[in-house]
C-alpha cells in the first residue's frame, strides 16, 4: 500500500492506494473506507471505493481543500487491512443457456472448451466483489480464469436483461436491471439484485465472495426467472 492523494474535482479527492487489481487490496480498501467515513463524518458527501482507489467527495462549506487533504492523511496513518474473511459468500443460481446468454457459444469456442466445460469453469471459482458501480447494485467481480477472458463487445447492446451474467476480460458481473451493456452474456439469474439496491441494501458488497451455480430452466423458472430473450444477437 502506497498512499497518494490526487485532486479529482473542486471538492473531491482520489485516494490512491494501489496500481494493480489484486484481491489482496480489498482488506486495505475496506479499512480505508471505514477510516475515512469516520474521519469526515458529517462533512462527507459521498465515498466511492473501487479496485485501487477511493473517491472522497466532501462538503467544501465545512472544510477547505487543504483541510480535506490533511484529514485524509491523518485518517489513514497507521492503517491496517480489514479482515476480508468477514465478507459474505453468496451462491448465485444461474441458468446458462444460449437463449438468455447469447455469447455462451462464442466464449466457449474462444476458450477451446465445450459449453458444459465453460459453465463448470465459470462456476468453479469463488469471485471477489471488487467494487460496486455502473448501476445500482452492480458488482464488479473477478478474477475470471485467464482462458475465459474475453474482450467487451465491439458495439455495446442497447439492452441487456436484468439478471444477465456476463464477463469482460477477466471480470464477471450481474446486471441488476435492464440496461445497455457491452459484456459477453452467458446466462441469467432470478436473484433480484436491484430490489436490494433500491432499499440501500445491495446484496453484493465489496469484499464479499460470489459462487455461481448452474441450474436448469425449470429451476430458473421456479425461482421466478424470466426466460424471454431480450438481447439482439451480435
Amino acid at each position, binding site marked *: 500500500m502506497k498512499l497518494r492523494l490526487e485532486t479529482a474535482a473542486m471538492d473531491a479527492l482520489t485516494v490512491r492506494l494501489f496500481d494493480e487489481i489484486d484481491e489482496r487490496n480489498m482488506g486495505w480498501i475496506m479499512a480505508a473506507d471505514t477510516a475515512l467515513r469516520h474521519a469526515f463524518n458529517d462533512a462527507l458527501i459521498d465515498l466511492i471505493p473501487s479496485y485501487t482507489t477511493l473517491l472522497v467527495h466532501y462538503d467544501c462549506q465545512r472544510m477547505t481543500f487543504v483541510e480535506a487533504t490533511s484529514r485524509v492523511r491523518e485518517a489513514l496513518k497507521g492503517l491496517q487491512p480489514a479482515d476480508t474473511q468477514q465478507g459474505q459468500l453468496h451462491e448465485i443460481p444461474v441458468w446458462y443457456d444460449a437463449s438468455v446468454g447469447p455469447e455462451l457459444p462464442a466464449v466457449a469456442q474462444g476458450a477451446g472448451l465445450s459449453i458444459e466445460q465453460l459453465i463448470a469453469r465459470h462456476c468453479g471459482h469463488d469471485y471477489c466483489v471488487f467494487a460496486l458501480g*455502473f448501476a445500482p447494485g452492480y458488482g464488479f467481480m473477478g478474477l475470471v480464469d485467464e482462458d475465459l477472458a474475453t474482450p467487451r463487445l465491439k458495439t455495446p447492446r442497447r439492452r441487456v436483461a436484468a439478471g444477465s451474467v456476463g464477463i469482460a476480460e477477466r471480470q464477471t458481473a450481474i446486471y441488476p436491471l435492464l440496461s445497455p451493456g457491452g459484456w459477453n452474456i452467458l446466462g441469467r439469474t432470478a436473484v433480484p439484485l436491484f430490489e436490494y439496491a433500491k432499499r440501500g441494501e445491495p446484496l453484493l458488497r465489496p469484499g464479499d465472495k460470489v459462487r455461481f451455480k448452474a441450474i436448469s430452466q425449470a429451476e430458473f423458472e421456479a425461482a421466478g426467472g424470466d426466460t424471454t430473450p431480450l438481447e439482439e444477437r451480435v
Partner: protein
Amino acid sequence: MRQASITVKQAGPLALIQDAGRFGVGHLGVTQSGAADWISFRWANWLLGNPLESAALEIVMGGNLTLETDATVYLALAGADLDARLDDKPLAVNAPFTLRPGQALTFRQPRAGLRAYLAFPGGLEAPVVLGSRACTTREQLGGLYENGKPLQLNDRLYWQGASVTPRRLPASAQLPIPNGRCLLPMVLGAQAAHFAGRSLYQLFNQPWRVDQRADRMGIRLTGQALESKVSGVISEGIPLGAVQVPPDGQPIILMNDRQTIGGYPRMGAITPSACALLSQCLPGTEVWLQPVSATQAQVSHRLQLAEWR
C-alpha cells in the same frame, strides 16, 4: 376537500421531478442525479419561499408540455426561457405567477437556455427513494412512480405546502443561461499527466462545441482531438463535472446521472457552477474551458451559495 393537483395534458420530450440529488449512496452504485442546473432550481424554490432543495420540475426543451390545475395555485419559474405561455399570454421567467383552473400552462421551445425549473408550494410530492425524490431514468429510480419514468400524459402532480411567500428575483442574481462566450472553470486533475503536453494546451486554448450527444449522464464536446498516452485506467470513482476523454479524443463532461465509477482517462473536472451553465447549453454552443485552482473554485462556490442567505 380533495387535494389540489396539476394534470399533464400534453407531455413534452422530457420533464423530470428533481431535487438536489441522491447523496451518500454512491458506494452502492447509485448515481447523484438531481437538478442539472442546480442554481436555477434553487432560484425557482427561492421565489416561492420554499426550502431551496424542495422537489421541482426540470423541464427540458419544452416541446408543448401542457399543464392544467384544478385549483388556483402559486408557482414559480426560473432558468431557461422556453417560451412559456399562460393560455396564449407570454409568461415571464424568473418570477412567481398564479395558475388558475381553466388556464393552460405550456412550454413551447427554447429561446435561451435548455432547462426551466417549475417550483410548487412546499415542493412536489413524490416518494423518497434512497433519500431523494430525484427521477433517474437510467436507474429506474425515483419520480412519481418510483420507476424513473419522466412525466407522462395524465400524470397528476401534488405539492407539499399550502401557502407560499412569493419573492422577486434580486437584481444581483445571475442565472447560468448562456449569453455570448461561455466560460467553464475547470480544476485540473492528477490524471492530466496522462495526456500529451500539446493536449493540455489545446484543452484551454480552443473553442469546444457542445455536441448533439448530450444528456443528463454526459455532454460531449467536439474540437481538435486530445491525445491520451493511455487508453484506459483501472475503474475508479468519478466526480461531478469530470472531463473524461475516450480514445477518440473528444471529451465528455460527466453530469448528474453519470456512472459512479469508470475507466476512461480524465483531465480534471469542471466546477458545479460550470456544470449548471453547461446543462443550459444547446447543441452547437461554443464553450471555453478555463483553468482554476481547487481553492479558488471553492471560494467562488461559497460566494455563490451566499446568494441565498
